[in-house]
């Protein structure tokens, strides 16, 4: 986001534009004046496709609102609670008159604050299961004991770090609660620009406009994955992006890439890209070049950080880049709105803005090549709330998918192709190891998702312990590797009927009979539980059109539509279908 002025934001955010967007309810509890952050929250929400409603708690009333209860601020509609607890207001002595304190006084004050934080956190959680983002204490620019301070365990900076660690630990024990490190925002901007001393004194509003924008952006790094809006794939141009110069003209020895200037600019950028790969981001290339020239750089250039194995798919040709980006999305089986495209050419950037507005474009101006790494590192588009084994291995799995497509072209009929994949399905009830991944799938899966119910870890935990529900997951292995947990079904039981509350599959495993086998398994489970009928629902969203007829195709009967919810049912008393024959093994604990 470029720096926007207050009046630009007001102009951009008209009520007509915001009204049709889904709401995003943000509650702010604080012991400082923070209202000027509101336009930035609203603007970033709008950019993400949401109409942000903010509710501010009273000035320095955090404890009363959290512990005493405050229904209009904290309820089940609350998507997110931001907590700003400034040390100056909470404990003047620790913040500003530290050198006059005895060790005992420091200890007493520290315990008081810890107790305060524990009670406030528990109080908020009691009232809402929404996301909690608690902003930690800022480190002082001028520690109380001067140069002695960093030498001492009992120094002011060290004490503040202790409090932050304590806060992080108690947040970690709560589901859907996160520690936001204000110090990283402060470092980026610098203390001289972070604070506006005039308004600190006039109105107890400590932060400058620049700081408030940075803080709002940091908040949205958490809200983006919460709402399933984080990006999955980074598509990179090659010339002037991965290396300086043009491979077609400058040749292998002529392009700029290496540990010293000017190649260091691109070397560092590639390292940042590789780091994203290791955090589960899929990498793709989209370049106007001769394909052999580009792969020659990957294979032969001694300073390449990225290797061919990191690239899930590539479109290196002379076609227009809009066509190529569509092809990349199709190859990876992800939506265009999951792509981030980085390119140095104004022509390509504007083409994509015009033709494919769903794609997020990050321009890389050639005269700012030294900032490429910063531009990527600061974008905040790929953040995830957890980092699972699946994330770490995602790049590998997408390469395997490409290999499967190759085999598919070689196989004559589909059944023999499926059989040649040697697929093993593992179907299990949720357990402590799988719950985070199951919750993540409910939050992130958009396309093959019948009801698009989003659940937190805590929700899944609760459902899996309930007698009237089953949380079932599907894991896939085949001859190309382990895809990990790729499917989730949640069955709820009411009297003699079972309801398919959630049924979803990761897109990368679609189109090989897995959806059918998984559904049949879940129906068998419902029958075993004594259900006579099973009800399936389809709730349309902008993304899940492909599953509109899924239940009909699986021999369910349509029974009606109400409030945009399509209902289907199947009689289980006569249900006897078996899974398709082409799986190597179906290893299930739910059908017996």
């Amino acid at each position: 986001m470029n720096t926007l002025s207050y009046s630009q934001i007001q102009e951009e955010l008209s009520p007509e534009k915001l009204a049709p967007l889904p709401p995003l309810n943000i509650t702010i509890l604080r012991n400082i004046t923070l209202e000027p952050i509101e336009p930035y929250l609203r603007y970033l929400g709008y950019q993400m496709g949401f109409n942000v409603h903010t509710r501010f708690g009273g000035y320095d009333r955090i404890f009363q609102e959290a512990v005493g209860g405050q229904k209009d601020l904290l309820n089940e509609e609350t998507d997110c609670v931001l907590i700003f607890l400034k040390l100056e207001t909470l404990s003047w002595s620790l913040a500003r008159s530290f050198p006059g304190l005895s060790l005992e006084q420091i200890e007493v004050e520290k315990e008081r604050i810890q107790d305060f934080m524990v009670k406030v956190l528990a109080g908020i959680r009691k009232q809402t299961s929404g996301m909690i983002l608690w902003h930690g204490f800022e480190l002082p620019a001028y520690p109380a004991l001067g140069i002695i301070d960093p030498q001492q365990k009992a120094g002011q900076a060290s004490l503040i770090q202790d409090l932050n660690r304590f806060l992080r630990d108690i947040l970690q024990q709560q589901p859907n609660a996160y520690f936001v490190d204000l110090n990283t925002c402060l470092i980026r901007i610098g203390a001289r620009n972070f604070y506006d001393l005039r308004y600190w004194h006039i109105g107890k509003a400590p932060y400058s406009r620049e700081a408030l924008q940075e803080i709002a952006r940091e908040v949205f790094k958490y809200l983006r994955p919460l709402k399933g809006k984080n990006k999955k794939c980074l598509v990179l141009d090659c010339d002037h992006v991965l290396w300086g110069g043009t491979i077609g003209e400058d040749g292998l020895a002529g392009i700029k890439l290496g540990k010293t200037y000017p190649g260091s600019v691109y070397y560092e950028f590639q390292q940042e890209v590789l780091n994203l790969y290791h955090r589960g981001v899929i990498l793709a290339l989209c370049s106007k070049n001769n394909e052999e020239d580009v792969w020659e750089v990957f294979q032969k250039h001694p300073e390449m950080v990225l290797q061919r194995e990191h690239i899930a798919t590539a479109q290196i040709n002379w076609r227009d880049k809009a066509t190529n980006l569509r092809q990349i999305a199709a190859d990876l089986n992800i939506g265009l709105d999951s792509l981030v495209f980085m390119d140095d050419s104004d022509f390509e950037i504007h083409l994509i803005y015009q033709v494919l507005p769903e794609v997020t474009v990050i321009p890389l101006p050639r005269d700012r090549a030294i900032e490429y790494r910063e531009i990527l590192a600061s974008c905040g588009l790929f953040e995830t709330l957890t980092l699972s084994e699946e994330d770490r291995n995602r790049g590998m799995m997408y390469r395997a998918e490409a290999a499967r497509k190759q085999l598919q072209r070689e196989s004559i009929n589909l059944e023999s192709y499926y059989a040649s994949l040697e697929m093993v399905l593992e179907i299990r009830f949720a357990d402590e190891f799988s719950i985070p991944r199951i919750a993540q799938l409910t939050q992130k899966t958009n396309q093959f998702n019948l009801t698009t119910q989003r659940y937190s870890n805590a929700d899944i935990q609760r459902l899996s312990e309930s007698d009237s529900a089953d949380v079932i997951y599907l894991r896939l292995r085949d001859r190309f590797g382990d895809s990990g947990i790729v499917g989730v079904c949640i069955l709820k039981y009411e009297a003699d009927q079972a309801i398919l509350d959630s049924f979803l599959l990761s897109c990368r495993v679609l189109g090989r009979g897995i959806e059918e086998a998984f559904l049949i398994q879940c129906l068998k489970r419902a029958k075993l539980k004594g259900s006579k009928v099973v009800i399936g629902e389809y709730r349309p969203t902008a993304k899940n059109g492909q599953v509109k007829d899924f239940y009909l195709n699986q021999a369910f009967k349509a029974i009606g539509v109400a409030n945009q919810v399509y209902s289907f049912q199947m009689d289980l008393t006569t249900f006897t279908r078996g899974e398709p024959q082409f799986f190597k093994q179906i290893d299930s604990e739910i059908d017996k």
Partner: protein
Amino acid sequence: MKERIFQIVSQVLGLPIDQIHEQSSPENIEAWDSLKHMNLILALEEEFGVQFTDEKIVEMLSVKLIMEAVEELLPQAKNDSQR
């Protein structure tokens, strides 16, 4: 400059521009509370690329006083508007 100031005051206070006068102040405009005043100052600073001192901020309590404060920091802006 006068026009730009009226524009910002109207935008920040959420009032139609024809209800803004040089004599407008927190005394006669209910929406002009201390929070709105802070937003107003921030928006003016962005618009004109200036920074008011803390003493000035607490004194700028009417459109007329705001205009004077901006003119003080941007003497050429006054000339522009007179020409």
